[in-house]
């Protein structure tokens, strides 16, 4: 499909630490098409950030990609050398991080940090680069961009800083943006604004977007598709309304159920019993079985990818088919 921007097949990223091997990402597969938004959801430690870093090739020692293919517009990123990857980063694939205070260099001016991004991939003059930076700032809704260019990161508010980060990501009109919890550190109102901006821009430019978060409510309003991660594996994928309304995997079901807004006032918040297992010593079989109300002896095997319903992928021996019946 020429429409498929990103096709991840069987990706595994392991961290080889002194204490043992941490399988942060274990055999995951997902796809993102042009102009679509994929929400990658999971609790902390589920491996979603590592997935993002794996795609853009910034997994640092002691971790590395151990298996799988990452097909970006047909090219396998795992086979590219560092030089080729660097050409793509910031250019065709961009990333937005969680805390903009830490991601923008505090001692360099905004214009320096934007101009260098432009000049890293386009051989243009400084003046031209500056012009493009100014335009990008305007595009994300930052008022008086000319003055702002001369400022330092700490002179911006949190929401503004994140808009700058988004502007930087958009400088070269990338085909894929990976956003790693970009609004977690911001107020809810700012968050809503930024979500709206990003959605609009993605539609206009046709960028594929991977939005990594633990917040289901964000995904509900923003994403087209959703992939749920647990303990380094993707347990369920599908279109967002379908998965959220009719979750097939017990974990997804539990996740949705534990969102406070979905609970009736005064009733006890529903929790998924137990704790996320340590990624160092994962028991064989389904990673969720220690906490799953439907687990039985069959779950001691690794569940394979299944497609119980069209357009949905699932890794479970006991899907909640009653939901879609």
């Amino acid at each position: 499909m020429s429409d498929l921007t990103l096709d991840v097949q069987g990706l595994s990223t392991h961290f080889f630490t002194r204490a043992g091997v941490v399988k942060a990402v274990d055999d995951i597969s997902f796809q993102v098409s042009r102009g679509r938004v994929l929400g990658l959801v999971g609790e902390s430690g589920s491996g979603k950030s590592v997935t993002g870093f794996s795609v853009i090739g910034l997994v640092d020692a002691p971790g590395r990609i151990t298996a799988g293919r990452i097909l970006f517009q047909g090219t396998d990123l795992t086979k590219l050398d560092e030089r080729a990857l660097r050409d793509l980063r910031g250019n065709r694939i961009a990333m937005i991080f969680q805390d903009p205070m830490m991601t923008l260099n505090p001692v360099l001016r905004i214009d320096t940090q934007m101009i260098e991004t432009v000049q890293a991939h386009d051989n243009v003059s400084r003046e031209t680069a500056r012009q493009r930076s100014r335009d990008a700032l305007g595009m994300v809704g930052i008022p008086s961009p000319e003055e702002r260019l001369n400022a330092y990161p700490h002179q911006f508010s949190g929401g503004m800083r994140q808009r700058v980060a988004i502007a930087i990501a958009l400088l070269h009109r990338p085909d894929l943006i990976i956003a790693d919890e970009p609004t977690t550190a911001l107020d809810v109102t700012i968050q809503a604004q930024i979500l709206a901006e990003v959605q609009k821009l993605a539609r206009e430019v046709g960028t594929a977007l991977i939005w990594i978060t633990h917040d289901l409510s964000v995904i509900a309003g923003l994403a087209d598709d959703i992939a749920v991660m647990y303990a380094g594996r993707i347990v369920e994928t599908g279109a967002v309304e379908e998965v959220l309304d009719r979750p097939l995997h017990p974990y997804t079901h539990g996740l949705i159920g534990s969102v406070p807004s979905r609970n009736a006032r005064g009733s006890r918040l529903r929790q998924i019993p137990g704790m996320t297992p340590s990624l160092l010593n994962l028991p064989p079989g389904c990673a969720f079985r220690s906490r799953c109300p439907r687990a039985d002896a069959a779950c001691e095997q690794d569940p394979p990818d299944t497609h119980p319903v069209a357009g949905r992928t699932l890794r479970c021996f006991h899907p909640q088919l009653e939901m879609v019946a």
Partner: protein
Amino acid sequence: MLRRLIQAVFVMLAMTVIVFIGVNVIGDPVEILISPEADQAERARAVAALGLDKPLWEQYWRFLLGALQGDLGRSFVFNEPALKLIAQRMPATLELALTAVLLSVVIGIPAGLYAGLKPDSIGGRMVMGLSIMGFSLPTFWIGLMLIMVFAVQLGWLPSTGRGQTAELFGVQWSFLTRDGLAHMAMPAFNLALGNIALVLRLTRAGVRENLPMDYVKFARAKGISPRRVVFVHVLKNIMIPIVTVVGLEIGGLIAFAVVTESVFAWPGMGKLIIDSINVLDRPVIVAYLMMIVLLFIVINLIVDLLYTVLDPRVRLENKE
């Protein structure tokens, strides 16, 4: 800023009190301030002239007034105003100290960068090992060994003294002549050793601390070349603490030049003070101490100013 200035004045005053007590209260001021070779009549005259028969606080007041006017007594040995002697020797010491600072930055930062970027390489480990030796070894002995190897055995460099100097702005400097540079090479390097180790370790620690930071990852995610990431992004962040430390160490270097100047017979303030202590030329000692404290305070103030200029976060805070 104003507070700092007031603090500085305070420290200077405290220094004058300490020096005054050291000279006039501890030990017999008559012995200390009057040349031991004077006879009875000369002594009596000197006592009256120096006001040693007056009450202590009045003596202090006279001392302070004299100091403010630049009169800190006359040297017994040279029979010249002590302050003038110190001032004459100051350029030699300053030149040595500043060259040492330059060396510590020029050698320390690149070496530290290398050790920080490649900590597990042979070069990286060697550099760290050398740095441990650098600040734990006795400087004066290293100086002796340098002389032994480079001057006595190899004959490449002159062993002692300052060599030729050339004039600039009315002052004699060594770095303007080739002979002067040859003479300055070993002492400056010797003096710089401890600092090189310090700058090296600071740089390395800074690199290791900054490399895993988010802004580095973000810069890489933008596709910025690794060279730029290190030399622009990381370096600018490391520079601030390094400049501060180096600036503050200049005072320490000027003080420690005492040792280097003695080993290499470099005619600066330091050698003068050691000689003066040995022959009990107290006015010179007093003049040296006052001058050093003044230098210290000035340097600290400059470093403070420099810090606000360098760190944009501090600079803009001050403005707003």
